[in-house]
């Protein structure tokens, strides 16, 4: 098993917390499957919009997220 670190930002910290969580995965996982697993653990995510980013780039759907990655959960932005 490898681990993926998941870090929440903005309002999602109210659901997941400020501290990154770790998920065990095989070699890699699809972005969609990762989101399903997060939803199972944090049902509050079901009401929230957010995107995933790895290495400062968005990932989605069938794109693979490798073990050892850091994944950012990015809700809609509020800068400016």
């Amino acid at each position, binding site marked *: 098993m490898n681990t993926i670190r998941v870090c929440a*930002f*903005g*309002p999602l910290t109210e659901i997941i917390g400020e501290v990154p969580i770790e998920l065990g995965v095989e070699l890699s996982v699809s972005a969609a499957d990762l989101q399903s697993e997060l939803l199972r653990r944090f049902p509050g995510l079901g009401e929230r919009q957010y995107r995933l*980013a790895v290495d*400062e780039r968005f990932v989605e759907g069938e794109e693979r997220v490798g073990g050892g990655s850091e994944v*950012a959960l*990015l*809700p*809609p*932005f*509020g*800068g*400016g």
Partner: protein
Amino acid sequence: MAKTELIIEPDRFLTEGPLPGERISQVLSRLSADPRIGGVSSFAGLVRADETDAGRVSAIEFTAHRSMAERSIGELIERTADGYESPVLHVYAEHALGRVSVGEIPIIIVVGASHRPEAFGLCRDVLEALKAEVPIWGKELTDTGGHQWKVNN
């Protein structure tokens, strides 16, 4: 299109704490040393005392995905500047992190160009792209101790 020299400032886009209002005049003073620049358009955002469901806003607490924000601001400035032709385009963009109270400044953008349409247009384009694309979040804190999250349209 003719070649445009694009100058982007500062090295780091994110700053701890509210931005000083003197910043615009400081940047303007630097731009005035470039004899090709004829127009400078600036924008400063101020925290408003909005009435919300959670009470009256007294401050906004800003957080960011810092590395992604720094990267995306540079990319969006280059992309938006691509739409303008001017011997020189000089873009300064800065955003506050942490607590910014009502009347204080969370964002400043300054754009110098040879002529005013490019200065106005690019200043506004950078601002709109920044609000849509840069991973920053604002937690609006209210006078009743409540909060709500700022969401850009």
